[in-house]
């Protein structure tokens, strides 16, 4: 505390960070929770929440189980075997992370819908694809890459030397895995499963597009506002959703200390792991190959649909969908996506770096509280966050505030945990004597931060920037309550176009949106002089 008083610059920076966190993270949430007021009684006695809660949990358990199983096979194959085509699988593994998760639902409709390529085109069937089965399948495909990234991260960190030692002491591959790898990575794997479960629980786009009458909490909250204008009801549902997510999140933090998150960064090389049986290697290879076929089918159908007149019935090549999305309000939406994403990523990464430094290097009381608040948005469902901003900042006296700016701010703070955790992890790699060296040479703490720490944290900054950008341009749930016609973005337009069954235009938007994310990643890779190669990146 005394050192803070001696350095007014640091104190000022800290107060600014605390103020921003209070206004843009804490306050909107409190507003949502407080909004129903007495309405909670009606809400609870009304009982409509029982079915959607049960269905949310049901679909969460099903989708998480399958996504984690597939993700584990993929991760095990990538980390433990020396199967061929690893670079290819790695690209396949990050592609879904660069796209809005709900485009899998769009592809699903294209492939299996009433006039679907596979269902109708090949089998001549008109299926009812909406409901639990559809959501389950779509979420499995949409979220297994997230599970893969999280699990691969955990497995990569398990110490190869210990496995070598176990093999040296006579344990077979299976024994090593069961008696060394698994016990050591159990907390990490548990955290990875819970993180995947949170992603699934919060998913709004997929159930909204193909859920049909099968409502889950996010779609119920959306329906209450868009259909009935029932804000108290929607906020009550959102609060319930937040409660569930927080339960999972607290359990996750107990397992890994709140330090797992899907980010884009270079993969650390490690020492070779003991070889696994050939049969296992090939089993993993075939599994990965089959998953890759599914992923390629999903994204391939999106690409073909974007380039043809009316896929799959009219296959005339055309650029008219791309012309449509680049003109008029759609062009604005695309431009907004890029501008909002860049602004949010820049400020989020910068702010997170400063906040990470203040928390990690500080010695003041209450830094654990700030630490918690900066990580908490990771547990907040996007829909809840969006409703929070819509509720808290939808005041007459704030009319001067541009909606685009509000969307940017929401993206900045919803994504703070990404950059913050990258910054803290980076700072832990930099010895405190670096700060002290600058100080002992006459630089104030802030000056040392600027001259020494920021340049050394380039990697963390890039991770925060790219991941935030990708998350910002692929989120639907955060912006769905915030956008106006002039501040709409690609994901909103995709969602609207799919709802209108206008797949050509929707997929063209999707391709453009994914293109933006890939572009951001590539530019960063070039800036980092290849230290993040696209093929080696994790998102």
């Amino acid at each position, binding site marked *: 505390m*005394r*050192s803070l008083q*001696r*350095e007014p610059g640091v104190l000022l920076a800290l107060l600014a960070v605390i103020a921003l966190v209070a206004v843009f993270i804490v306050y909107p949430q409190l507003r949502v929770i407080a909004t129903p007021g007495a309405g909670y009684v009606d809400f609870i006695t009304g009982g409509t929440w029982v079915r959607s809660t049960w269905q949310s949990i049901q679909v969460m358990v099903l989708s998480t189980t399958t996504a984690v199983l597939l993700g584990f096979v993929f991760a095990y194959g990538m980390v433990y075997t020396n199967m061929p085509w690893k670079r290819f699988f790695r690209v396949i593994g990050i592609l879904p992370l660069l796209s809005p998760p709900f485009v899998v639902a769009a592809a699903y409709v294209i492939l299996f819908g009433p006039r679907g390529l596979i269902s109708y085109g090949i089998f001549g069937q008109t299926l009812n694809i909406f409901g639990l089965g559809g959501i389950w399948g779509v979420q499995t495909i949409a979220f297994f890459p997230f599970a893969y990234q999280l699990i691969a991260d955990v497995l990569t960190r398990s110490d190869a030397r210990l496995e070598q030692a176990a093999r040296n002491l006579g344990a077979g591959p299976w024994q090593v895995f069961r008696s060394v790898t698994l016990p050591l990575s159990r907390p990490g794997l548990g955290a990875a499963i819970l993180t995947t479960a949170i992603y699934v629980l919060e998913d709004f786009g997929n159930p909204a597009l193909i859920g049909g009458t099968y409502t889950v909490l996010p779609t119920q909250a959306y329906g209450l506002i868009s259909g009935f204008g029932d804000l108290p009801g929607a906020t009550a549902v959102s609060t319930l959703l937040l409660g569930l997510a927080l339960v999972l999140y607290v359990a996750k933090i107990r397992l890994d200390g709140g330090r797992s998150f899907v980010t884009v960064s270079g993969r650390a090389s490690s020492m070779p792991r003991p070889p696994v049986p050939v049969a296992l290697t090939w089993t993993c290879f075939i599994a990965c190959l089959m998953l890759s076929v599914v992923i390629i089918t999903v994204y391939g159908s999106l690409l073909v649909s974007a380039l043809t007149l009316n896929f799959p019935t009219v296959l005339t090549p055309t650029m008219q969908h791309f012309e449509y999305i680049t003109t008029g309000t759609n062009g604005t939406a695309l431009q907004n996506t890029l501008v909002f994403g860049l602004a949010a990523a820049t400020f989020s990464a910068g702010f997170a770096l400063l906040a990470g430094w203040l928390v990690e290097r500080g010695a003041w009381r209450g830094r654990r509280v700030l630490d918690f608040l900066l990580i908490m948005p990771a547990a907040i469902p996007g829909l809840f966050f969006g409703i929070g901003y819509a509720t808290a900042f939808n005041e007459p006296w704030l009319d001067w505030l541009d909606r685009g700016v509000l969307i940017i701010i929401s993206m900045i703070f919803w994504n703070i945990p990404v950059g913050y955790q990258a910054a803290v992890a980076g700072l832990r790699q930099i*010895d405190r*004597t*670096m700060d*002290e*060296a*600058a*100080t*002992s*040479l*006459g*630089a*104030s*703490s802030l*000056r*040392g931060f600027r*001259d*020494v720490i920021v*340049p*050394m944290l380039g990697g963390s900054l890039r991770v925060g920037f790219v991941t935030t950008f990708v998350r910002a341009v692929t989120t639907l749930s955060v912006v769905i309550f915030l956008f106006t016609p002039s501040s709409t973005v690609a994901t909103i337009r995709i969602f609207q176009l799919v709802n209108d069954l206008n797949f050509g235009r929707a997929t063209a938007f999707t391709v453009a949106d994914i293109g933006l994310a890939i572009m951001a990643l590539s530019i960063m890779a070039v800036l980092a002089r290849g230290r993040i190669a696209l093929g080696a990146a994790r998102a």
Partner: protein
Amino acid sequence: MPDIHLRLDGVTKTFGGVNAVDDISFEIPRGAFATLLGPSGCGKTTTLRMIAGFYDPDKGDIVLSGKRINELPAHRRGTAMVFQDYALFPHMTVRDNVGYGLRVASVAKEERERRVNETLEFVGLGKLGDRWPNQLSGGQQQRVAVGRALVLRPEILLLDEPLSNLDAKLRVQLRYELRALQQQLKMTFVYVTHDQDEALSLSDWIAVMNAGKVEQHGTPWEIYYHPRTAFLADFVGAVNLVPGTVREIREGRAVVSFGERSISVPIPAGTTLSAGAAVKLCVRPEALGLAPRGAAADGAALPGTVVRKAFLGDLMRYWITVDGREWIVDQPDPGAANDFDGQVTVAVKPERIHVIADTSS
């Protein structure tokens, strides 16, 4: 009255209920090479970091050139520091590292370049200015770290085990370079180390620390030959510590019995002994002589048996049991001396025995 440059007065620092530094006080004269010596965890680095301003003392005052600096932020103290791991900025060249402090102080570019070049010459890095830190050897990195601090002409230079990451030979070489540097600049150095050879060979003044306290401070000579506690005697160099009891005080000397034997030894200045007091007789191994059993011994003769010995090049170290207790005896220049085995006589000169009041029992 010497010119006191740095004074610590009752300084205490607590970490989690443990007194890392416990009420220490000392004064360092201007221009001295002062060393804080002690085992790891003794509080020496914590003390140095409080002087630098990285930790706030919980109690006590730190006074630099007559001015209390407790409340002065670290970057305004003029206490440049050389770190154990050097903490060179990896994204700056050698030249930029050395010039960093001048840049922060807004020294004009020409003046800055002149001083950086001068300093690089001075620390022997004249041609390496454009290298990056990771292109330098450990010894070169160490010189950059020293140069980076010296270029600021700091009021006082703090060094935190600056040689401990180097290999043994280079460590000894740089030790003498540092000492020469300090004498040339007449700058006050505060140096932290756990290496007693380093402390003895470099310092004008040593404070030996243990468990957060300064056990003793003084010249290297005083510390080595007149340690005030058994810990000190044992920590600084090899030593024989033989428990005994004062039988009587006669003519300014103490007659001390140990086992079946007794010997009359001088009483060190500042020590008061009375009959019946428990003491430890402290004898350095190199102060003992060896002779074949039965030969005339210089001083008191103790019959003993060689248990084992180690050839260390410049000396031969013997472990010898005398009355069931093991003694260490060093014989210099083994190539020119007898090689002893079996029954021998250990020769003890009473004047070379230092008596320590035994507070442990």
